[in-house]
């Protein structure tokens, strides 16, 4: 049902190369905005078409922004109570002959105007049990008093002390490479905090780290099917074909430490 609906939406909202295109031409995606600040969103239709209305939609705004007359330029305020974070906004419009056009979303990053007095990272310590296991580090700004809020990813960077043990994927996500302990330093301007990372990979295929390979591990691997592999090496990709799929599960069943993969 949902695939059919998706197909229908594609038809209704037109994505063919030669069809009219609605675009948010400014501001560029990733623009940083502040609660209470103003922003101007400009939308174009190419080729020029008579539109009944063009709107800007997004959870950042308290209501749809509507214009019925070209040029479609939307001057508005970022709500004072906007929670810091990344939001997407999309332009949508209806041509006078009844076709609905829609833009590619652009993202706006809401940040606090204040600078945090300290930063915190979570989790405070990370344990990884197989090569390729990933863990994302969340970074929070402490703005004094009772206010602790996530820092936008543009405001910090993560540095690995020993890259032979873990690697840093996009953002602040670490992935296990080899056994050992190291640290990740999170830097935000003059502020920093440190997280300890421990990698202990045991028996191959023992994903839950309980000392054996059994049905629990098979179920666990099955639940990761069709997920992307960690590019720096991944113990879930048992046949090393760059995918986590049923073939890996089949390989794992041959590695069970008891008959019929029995759980002790």
């Amino acid at each position: 049902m949902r695939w059919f609906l998706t197909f229908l939406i594609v038809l209704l909202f037109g994505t063919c190369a030669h069809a009219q295109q609605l675009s948010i031409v400014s501001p560029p995606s990733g623009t940083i905005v502040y609660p209470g600040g103003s922003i101007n969103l400009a939308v174009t239709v190419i080729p020029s078409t008579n539109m009944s209305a063009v709107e800007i939609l997004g959870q950042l705004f308290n209501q749809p922004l509507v214009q019925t007359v070209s040029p479609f330029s939307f001057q508005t305020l970022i709500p004072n109570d906007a929670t810091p974070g990344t939001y997407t906004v999309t332009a949508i419009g209806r041509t006078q002959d009844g076709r609905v056009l829609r833009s590619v979303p652009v993202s706006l990053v809401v940040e606090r105007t204040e600078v945090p007095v300290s930063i915190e990272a979570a989790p405070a310590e990370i344990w990884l049990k197989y090569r390729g296991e990933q863990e994302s580090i969340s970074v929070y700004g402490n703005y004094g008093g009772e206010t602790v809020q996530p820092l936008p990813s543009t405001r910090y960077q993560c540095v690995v002390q020993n890259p032979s043990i873990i690697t840093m994927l996009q953002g602040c996500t670490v992935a296990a490479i080899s056994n050992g302990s190291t640290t990740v330093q999170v830097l935000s301007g003059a502020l920093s905090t440190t997280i300890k990372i421990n990698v202990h990979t045991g028996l191959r295929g023992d994903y839950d780290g309980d000392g054996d390979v059994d049905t629990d591990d098979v179920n666990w691997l099955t639940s990761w099917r069709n997920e992307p592999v960690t590019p720096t090496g991944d113990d879930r990709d048992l046949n090393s074909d760059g995918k986590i799929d049923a073939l890996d599960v089949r390989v794992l069943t041959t590695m069970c430490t008891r008959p019929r993969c029995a759980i002790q």
Partner: protein
Amino acid sequence: MFPGCGNLPAELIDASSSAFSGILGKTSLTNADYTTLSTASGRAVKGVAADGTALLLVRLPIISTTTTTNPKARYTFTLFDEHGQIRPSNEVGAVGHPGVLHNDIVFTGTVETEYGARLDSRVTVAFKAPLDFARGLDDYSTLTRSVFLRVTSEIDGVPPLLVPVIVRRPPVVLVHGLWDSSASWNTFTPLMTKSNRETMNVKWPLFNYGKTDHSKGTADRTFLENAGRLSHYVAKAVAAEAQAERVAVSKVDFVVHSMGGNIVRSLSRIPTSLTVQNYRQGYVHKLITIGTPHLGSPLAQDLIRFENSCTAGYFDAAGMSPLNGAVSDLAGKGDGTALSAALKAMSPVVSPTALLAGRVSDAQMGNMSNFKAAASWICPDDPIVQNFTAAAYRNIVGDQHDGIVPVASALNKRQGEVWGDGASPGGKHSKSLGLLGIGGAPLLDPDGPVATKVMELLNLSVSASEFVQ
């Protein structure tokens, strides 16, 4: 120190290991089993999370006072709280024979038991975590407390041994709702304030599931797909808490908003959520649902109807996608009828679950006509658009609702507290409903009545009347 054991301390071992799982379920133990329980390596800990499931093996090193003519010496294990009082066993835990089934170590008023020491170097008993952490206001803002195992011997002149066991508050896992992100909890004070996260320089064990940006992370996936990811997340959260605090942890307290409750109730369909770690009982110690559509949402049902396809695209453009995954699973009339297959497949609402609902008034929906006007420019022919007014919206979601979820659905057709309608503000499903022109404070309002209630529920016994029994 124990008779004849010199200065060797008692050893607390987390029993959630495959080394012990085959033994703990046996009704009759062999000598080899006893040897395993007494000597097999395991994770040494200081205590347990008060989740009613975590299990310790308490090993006492002894030099046997037994002889072939007197093969047994008896030891008595008695549990006390930190003040030396024998308290209701829900509060202190339970001690039992390691050979009985895990569930048979029951919380009765009796916390004293006797064992015949075997001709081993250690005597081993099982200690099962207390069911509740907080015992009233004294524990409201603390993270740990202690209980003691007092071990006495029948041997004359031998002083008793006290074995301290740290009891720690179970981890709390927050699960956000549809069209939302983990950032939705950022201002859910007091739970999320610094002072509550840090007590005695130890952070409150809070884990906030999901991405921090307003991505479509949960909306693009079905209940089942979301539950699979949540299962991995909780397993890691439990392991992290266990490692960091050196305690045995099996379960967590879930505080969930909206579809987060449906995802948690779908965990039972994920084989990996039943693990050695939680003795195959699942991860739920306590579930607190806030505005969860247990019986579905009629809005979801309407948005996926063919004749409202344009409006579905309109919602999608607004970052509230009904096109993939989750919304189809949320379809239901909210009164228990027309449930989606995914709603039917969830585990039942069972103890201990607290159900919190919100309600908005017609006055709070006064600006919905603005949304109707905007949507009408783009989707004038969709029937659903005509219902986007304060008066007509009840044609979609009924008379009592929080903007998306009928009260009956959030309460699973039970009686319960409902927030909203002036006297107790904070009844709107989520902040993002402002886009639809629905005003008022959201359920996750900072320092709102729901936030206060959640703190209370986290500190109540799972047997309290607030939880579905």
